[in-house]
């Protein structure tokens, strides 16, 4: 069931919040894809009852009466928040993240927390301490990552909306691989308060749904100015759901010259070409742009993100919360044992890389240089947006791939983020939407907009979805 129908059913009282929750919990309990880490049945039912009893108060809220799943990176008060790690497998935060708080206030009911790559580090959901998630389109396939659980949750039709976070593509890539719509907003649009940090200068929370409509409503709930996050924008929020009704003038849409040179699979390229004709059919003009700098983004990202993560993850030391080794001899042994036992290999790898690139003697060669590349990419985007309104490109190089691929070629996994990373480096908003099936598997297209153009991105995606049925395809 899509979001719009589900919300309408509540608003018209044809189904109560409690009934919606019960139905969803049934699906969560029978899930065979390992989508969830924890389910909160009791809390969800009591929240649903509260909403039913206060129908008038919640009726017109953007997410009224709709069950939601949150990525397990968002802190939930007194409810276990693991971040996909052994380190936090029993951690109960004493506070709610702003995203969860906003969603609660908007009438949604949290059912469960979704599986994810450990501390959001991964593109396949295989680094989770709680085991990999399977893609609803094929059990041996990965759903993408790091928000793999949240994307699979929508594709498997368990909830109609879910939250994710995107540092290098962690919303858009799984959205593409699972055949749903997912958006990374402008850096700073959604508060990071209570979202466990991976790379603070790029982490951004965003919505998943089958379609742009669901994403718009969820973004309406998620986005707010938050005094608790100094990097959060002071912009007055617009109503994204309403702006879907705005007429779109003919837009200039940039398409990247020689994009096939980036090593993109022909299935993806074929879908991409089809989507281009859809955009033209909607009256928009395609304009070729030169963006050869695009591929250097990945090098910059895999220096900056590990650097920040090596610092952000220092707090997991066994002293105050989370896993604590029982084998320690002294304080430095406590640190080493706790962190050796608590973190998985991918996280350790990135902490080591990050520590190295910030070390005396290497800082200039790596961290500083990576920041310069980041600046170049940002400037390039600014230049491009003088000529075009949006940029269109595929979300990923390929479709959903088989599990256990990483062990044979770790660099290939990092390369997976080639087309998504540039928007993170520049802090720009980008949306991934279904682009049709090839070989019975989804492909994804990605639109990147200028700062705070979420309304435009959602609107044009919605217009595409009005004339196509790619977003309606199910496994």
């Amino acid at each position, binding site marked *: 069931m899509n979001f719009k129908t589900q919300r309408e059913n509540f608003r018209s009282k044809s189904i109560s919040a409690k009934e919606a929750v019960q139905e969803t919990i049934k699906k969560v309990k029978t899930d065979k894809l390992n989508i969830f880490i924890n389910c909160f049945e009791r809390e969800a039912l009591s929240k649903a009852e509260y909403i039913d009893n206060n129908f008038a108060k919640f009726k017109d809220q953007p997410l009224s009466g709709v069950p939601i799943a949150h990525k397990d990176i*968002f802190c939930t008060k007194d409810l276990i928040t693991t971040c996909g790690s052994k380190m936090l497998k029993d951690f109960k935060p004493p506070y709610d993240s702003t995203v969860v708080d906003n969603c609660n206030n908007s009438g949604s009911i949290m059912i469960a927390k979704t599986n994810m790559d450990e501390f959001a580090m991964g593109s396949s959901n295989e680094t989770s301490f709680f085991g990999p998630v399977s893609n609803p389109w094929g059990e041996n396939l990965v759903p993408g990552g790091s928000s793999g659980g949240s994307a699979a949750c929508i594709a498997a039709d368990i909830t109609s909306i879910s939250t994710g976070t995107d540092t290098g593509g962690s919303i858009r890539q799984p959205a593409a691989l699972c055949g749903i719509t997912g958006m990374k907003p402008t850096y700073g649009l959604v508060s990071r308060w209570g979202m466990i940090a991976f790379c603070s200068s790029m982490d951004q929370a965003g919505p998943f749904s089958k379609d742009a409509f669901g994403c718009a409503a969820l973004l309406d709930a998620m986005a707010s100015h938050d005094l608790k996050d100094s990097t959060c924008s002071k912009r007055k929020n617009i109503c994204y759901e309403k702006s879907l009704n705005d007429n779109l003038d003919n837009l200039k849409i940039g398409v990247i010259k020689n994009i096939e040179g980036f090593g993109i699979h022909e299935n993806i390229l074929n879908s991409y070409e089809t989507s281009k004709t859809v955009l033209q059919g909607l009256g928009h003009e395609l304009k070729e742009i030169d963006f050869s700098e695009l591929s250097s983004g990945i090098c910059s990202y895999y220096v900056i993100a590990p650097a920040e993560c090596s610092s952000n993850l220092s707090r997991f030391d066994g002293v105050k*919360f989370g896993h604590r080794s029982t084998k320690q001899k002294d304080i430095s042994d406590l640190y080493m044992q706790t962190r050796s036992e608590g973190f998985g290999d991918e996280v350790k790898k990135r902490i080591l890389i990050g520590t190295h690139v910030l070390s005396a003697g290497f800082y200039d060669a790596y*961290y500083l240089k990576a920041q310069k590349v980041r600046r170049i990419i940002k400037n390039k985007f600014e230049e491009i947006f003088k000529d075009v309104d949006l940029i269109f490109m595929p979300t990923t190089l390929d479709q959903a791939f088989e599990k256990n691929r990483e062990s044979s070629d770790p660099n290939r996994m990092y390369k997976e983020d080639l087309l998504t990373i540039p928007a993170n480096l520049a802090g720009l908003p980008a949306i991934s939407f279904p682009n049709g099936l090839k070989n019975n598997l989804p492909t994804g297209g990605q639109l990147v907009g200028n700062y705070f153009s979420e309304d435009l991105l959602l609107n044009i995606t919605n217009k595409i979805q009005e004339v196509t049925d790619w977003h309606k395809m199910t496994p």
Partner: protein
Amino acid sequence: MAQNDTLVKGWQPVIGLEVHVQLLTNTKLFSPARNKFGEDANTLVDLIDMGLPGVLPVLNEEAMRQGIKFGLATSAKIAKTMIFDRKNYFYPDLPKGYQITQLHFPIVKDGIVDVDGKKIRIHQAHLEEDAGKSMHDQYDSKSVIDLNRSGVPLLEIVSEPDIRSASEAVNYLKKIHQIITYLDISDGNMSQGSMRCDANVSIMRPDSKEFGTRAEIKNINSFKFVEKAINFEVKRQIKCLEDGETVEQETRLYDSIKDETRSMRTKEFANDYRYFPCPDLVPINISSELIKDISNNMDELPEEKEQRFKKVYRLDDYEAKVLCVEKQTANFFEEVTKNCDPKLSAKWIIGEINALLNKNDISLGDSKITPENFSSLMAKINDGTISGKIAKEVLEEIWNTGSNAEKIIKSKGLEQISDETELESIAQSVLDNNPGQVEAYKAGKDKLFGFFVGQVMKETQGKANPKSINEILKRLLSG
């Protein structure tokens, strides 16, 4: 400058100080928890101070304003844009595993302080958060942590290596103490740790163009220890070099009980702090309007106060300087002058009050002396009710009880005897009882006059008006 004054056995000490000052803000540097000393352990702790996953820092603008104040007071450059960095290291009382500080773009740069006529340059002053406190001796086999101090705002003031002796270092530190307390940005209490000092010490030959290798002495917590620690360290380094060894670049700890510095860690074991800009805090622009606003509302600085005191109250250089060493003394003086003669008050504050404070080793604010009870004493001196000598006795009583002069004088019967007839009869009986001395005086032994005055004072328990006694005795003896 007479540089030779500072040489030790032919060596020139070179010293730079890093002074950590806890700022007097209501809340912590990046969290809404209260900033206060001496509360029960772990009662002033917010999620942010615990470094919980997902929490974010938000800058306390009060701390920024205080940093700017310090910059203005030391004629420094205030940053147009300041940037916070993370200093990464593991320690149990550092909950996040990094300290938020400022490395390359501090709030204040290139200041100057005048220390007894010598300009000592301030390299920079930067804002940073304090760590919690580890305690290792409260439980048998456990260390415990108090996070009340975690996140308390600090201003770290880093001098250039312009200081040339231990005593100059102390005077510089006293000057910094004076500035921060005048600006009300810190209580400067060294024993409670709200002002702490690290000293970078090296030695060189006076004709050398290059500084020697320096040792950093950590956490020296009193003016006295700063002097002792530096003196010890200078002697240690001299011995090192004269024995043909080299001074190692290292961090040393001062042990005040043994009066020595000990090696803590050498350079090869120094931490690599992996500084990088804190991504949770955007670069902060400091507008010229803000600086102007702070500048317009700045409290008077010591030098300005001295000048004003000289002009308004006709004090001399010495009096103005001594009264202005501490802001609370200067404020006390001004309060008292509302009702009393400034010169007389200045004399009493500089002499008697300061002596009592030093003797008892407490500050004016912690004593029972108030502008009201002190004024009552000045009034009684001024109108001749008591003599200076009696006044000292009354002051002791005020010091002990906090009562006012009028009550003390009444209850102890200390009024000065100025009644001429009464004094004359006492004087006459003194002369009658000492005929030999009277004869000797009359024969030319002038010095005996003092003896007669003393005797009258003894008879009156010091209450006789000295001026009247002099006149009466002179008249009687010449008769």
